[in-house]
């Protein structure tokens, strides 16, 4: 029962030098190089996914064409969880190795994760109306998604409320990690509650009529969502780096165009 492990991690670590790209200065140009491939992949995969989803995948026997919402709903729901885990991962790395860049990564991911959670909720509601006859059912997935959305909001609100960037990073990291520990508990509890109160809900992905082309469309869209998330997070982390490091020489040279990145 000692907090010395936790507080000891705040000391500068000798291991930092191992992470070559952990310094904002070296990561900035790398992020810039990765940006265009990510955007191209995002656009290409989206086009391929939409074409497969709308023109190749057949109409579903039971749900009709309303099922085509899952091409964004399912990837959005996946991404909202993946992004939260990625965020918590970067926060943990930041706390352990004391790397500023990790905290910047997690702040860069949060708004996109919240966006995906919102999209999952929105499309879930619009899919629920024709399928369940109601926009909002207290279904286990939808309820956990809603709580996940609130977790994102809490993380961002906490960071926004703290002026000192170092305190904002660390306090945000702590709540992100506590949240990540809680996500499985929340999902389990909501699922458990749900089975007690009503019958099992219609499952989106386990529908027996799921044609392989439908699955292909969904996977393509999921990959597109990955690419988009990477691209937009890289863009945002570059902006954050400039904002946070505005007093350093490399940012000043960058902004005045004296060296190209």
């Amino acid at each position: 029962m000692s907090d010395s492990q936790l507080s000891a991690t705040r000391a500068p670590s000798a291991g930092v030098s191992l992470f070559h790209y952990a310094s904002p200065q070296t990561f900035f140009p790398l992020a810039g190089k990765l940006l265009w491939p990510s955007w191209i992949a995002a656009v290409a995969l989206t086009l391929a996914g939409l074409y497969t989803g709308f023109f190749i995948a057949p109409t579903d026997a039971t749900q009709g064409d309303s099922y085509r919402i899952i091409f964004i709903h399912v990837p959005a729901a996946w991404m909202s969880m993946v992004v939260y885990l990625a965020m918590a991962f970067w926060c943990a790395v930041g706390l352990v190795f004391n790397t500023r860049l990790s905290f910047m990564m997690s702040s860069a991911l949060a708004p996109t994760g919240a966006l995906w959670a919102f999209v999952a909720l929105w499309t879930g509601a619009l899919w629920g109306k024709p399928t369940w006859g109601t926009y909002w059912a207290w279904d286990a997935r939808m309820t956990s998604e809603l709580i996940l959305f609130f977790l994102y909001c809490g993380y961002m609100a906490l960071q926004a409320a703290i002026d000192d960037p170092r305190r904002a990073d660390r306090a945000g990291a702590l709540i992100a990690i506590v949240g990540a520990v809680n996500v499985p508990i929340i999902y389990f509890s909501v699922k458990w509650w749900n089975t007690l109160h009503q019958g099992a809900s219609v499952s989106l992905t386990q529908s027996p009529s799921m044609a392989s082309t439908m699955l292909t469309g969904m996977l393509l869209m999921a990959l597109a969502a990955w690419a988009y998330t990477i691209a937009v997070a890289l863009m945002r982390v570059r902006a954050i780096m400039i904002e946070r490091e505005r007093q350093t020489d490399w940012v000043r040279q960058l902004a005045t165009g004296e060296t190209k990145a």
Partner: protein
Amino acid sequence: MSGSTASLIEVRALSCVRGSARLFSGLDLILGAGELMHVAGANGSGKTSLLRILCGLSEPASGEVRWRGAPAASVRDDWRSGLLYLGHRNAVKDDFTPLENLRASAAIAGDTTPGDVLLRALVDIGLGARLDVPARSLSQGQRRRVALARLLADTRSALWILDEPFTALDTGAVAVLSRAMAAHLARGGAIVYTTHQPVDINAARRQTLNLDDFS
């Protein structure tokens, strides 16, 4: 008192950033047994920030703090048990009497000084007549004395870190405190303090650190 090196606390290439302002940088200091260090500097030069870094409440932006020759973060428990910090806030509860306050502070610090020593300290610092009065009805200077009584009762700490200890004290209390500081130095302890009023403390070895030189 383990540790073979002479220095009690040592700081290398320290810099401190608060918000977006750089308070000081490139600061080195070494403090050994029996030494008194007065930290001077203009308002906002980072005196309080330096003291908080010295006791581990704040992390420096860069640089290193060493305790008895070892990196302070690696000997955190020894570091904490070897120092006594009094900030400009008194840590005195309005609803407690002076003695209750002193007992609570000792308990929080993990200090097992017996009750009669604490009582003696309160009497020595001139609060003998006000032992049963809640701190709420004490004057500003008397509340400060409640906090400072910890120093008089302390025999455990090697380093005292005092942020404006003389503020709000009358001449009698200043004399008591400076005697206590001199006695601590004579015992082989060290003191880092800030002050706005010139106070003569009897010390064999003294240093003055002006933070304006490092801004």
